[in-house]
């Protein structure tokens, strides 16, 4: 596959030996993960395993104390100094890399004082500097794509959770990101609304978007992921193709976790 050939040159995400402490607690204990172009990686694991924290490190919403993360070859968050120490990068540089990474949050985080359309055009106009007319045209296409063209002028409080999350996805896509991060994007939704969001995510994956997805939706992992990564206690304990991993997990902890999830389902 051509995509894989490209990724052999510069991976979209390259995290190397990432360590993070919250005060005295080490929440990430040497996480290394490479994500190729167009690859969909789903991270699963018990709560408190550090999967959300790790995802948030990928666009520097969380600081790390050791290790290195590059997005499409660019360091995010830090410059590595000559003595090997990490030094936090300038806000300008961090924002520049972040602008290329879309993120979708568990609690949507739409801007409540703006309509759906205004939410989507906000960053393209004020960060990328494109004209309002152009931003609106593109925003309407994106709202159409997520099935919400008719809600362009609605404020978030008039939208259901599923609709809000789809606007949030459109908002992230409006920046034409190279990479999309999904942080438990369906966890705050009523069960009957989960499907509409997963459908949009699946469509994105099929279009070749590079995605890192933290989720509890095992069905999504099975159907859409190129690779499933299992985290526990701040480390990656196992990873592989979904079919193989779900059918025949190698680690005892993975088996325990999958067993618990299956019982819950």
């Amino acid at each position, binding site marked *: 596959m051509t995509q894989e050939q490209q990724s052999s040159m510069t991976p979209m995400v390259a995290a190397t030996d990432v360590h993070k402490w919250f005060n005295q607690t080490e929440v990430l204990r040497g996480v290394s993960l490479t994500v190729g172009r167009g690859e969909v990686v789903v991270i699963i694991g018990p709560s408190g395993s550090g999967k959300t924290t790790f995802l948030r490190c990928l666009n520097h919403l969380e600081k790390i104390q050791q290790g290195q993360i590059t997005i499409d070859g660019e360091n995010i968050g830090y410059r590595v100094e000559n003595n090997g120490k990490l030094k936090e990068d300038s*806000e300008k540089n961090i*924002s520049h890399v972040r602008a290329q990474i879309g993120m979708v949050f568990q609690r949507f*985080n*739409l801007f409540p004082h703006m309509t759906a359309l205004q939410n989507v055009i*906000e960053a393209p106009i004020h960060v990328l500097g494109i004209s309002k007319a152009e931003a609106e045209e593109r925003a309407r296409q994106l709202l159409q794509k997520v099935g919400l063209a008719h809600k362009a002028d609605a404020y978030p*409080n008039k939208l259901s959770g599923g609709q809000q999350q789809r606007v949030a996805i459109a908002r992230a896509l409006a920046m034409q990101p190279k990479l999309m991060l999904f942080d438990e994007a369906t966890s705050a939704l009523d069960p009957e609304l989960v499907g509409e969001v997963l459908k949009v995510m699946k469509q994105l994956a099929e279009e070749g978007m590079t995605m890192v997805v933290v989720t509890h939706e095992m069905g999504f992992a099975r159907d859409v992921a190129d690779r499933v990564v299992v985290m526990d206690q701040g480390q990656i304990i196992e990873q592989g193709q979904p079919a193989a991993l779900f059918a025949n997990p190698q680690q005892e902890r993975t088996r325990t976790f999958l067993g618990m999830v299956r019982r819950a389902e």
Partner: protein
Amino acid sequence: MPIVSAFIGILAQGTQFQWDIVWKFLFDSSILQGAIITIVLAIISQFTGSVIGLLIYLIRRTPLRPAAEAYIWFFRGTPLLVQLLFLTNIFPLLNLARPLNSSTIFTDLGFQYMPLSFFLGAFLAFAFNEGAYMAEIMRAGIDSIDPGQMEAAKSLGMSYGLAMRRIVLPQAARVIIPPLGNEFNSMLKTTSLAGYFGVLELYGAGFNIGNSLFKPLELAIDLSIWYLLMTTLWGFVQSYLERRFNASTLDGTKGTRFIDRVLGRGTPATESAAEAIMTGGRR
């Protein structure tokens, strides 16, 4: 001082309270000028105080935090009257009194002459003092916004400043405006202290007339009428602002009705915000 002069005034005039004096001076030109000076002084002081409050909020996030804390400590820990005393008298020390006081800005605008250093000193005292209180209001307002808003903005590549300006502050305004309105109501009245320091604002103008005629009570009625007029008009403006900033919001809470505003009754939202802000007593 005013009580003493009121007492002397009553002695001097015998026992009569003269309503015709009240009406005669209600629209006296120096009272009208004083009212205008009061409004101008209150607006520029409140505006500057609000800007200072926001700056203090921002400085608190930097390594200069102790400086911000010291500022608040000082201006909340000393009486406004002392701050006025200091700042209206600081200019001679800086060799600025003479150039300032030779300014004819007030007479050029058709007002009575007053030393600009007095006006400037009073303005600075009100603005600095207000800044310390506005810092708390800004903090309560901004911190009431879900941190997820800032994260979402940053994840879209916005800088802290842009996210603050476009995303956080417009939402915080909804929380900040009710207490800010109360601050301005307070400011309209607090500026009367400047009358003691040679500023011919409403109180100073009224006091001078009442004192020279030995009619302090009559002039006190005039002053009350003017201050009530100003605070009442502001009540209308405030109700309008609160409704406007609620127009496109989250929970559809209505602004405070005018009658409730005048009687000091807030909406539940206003009161909880005000409550959050009223930590450590007010002047």
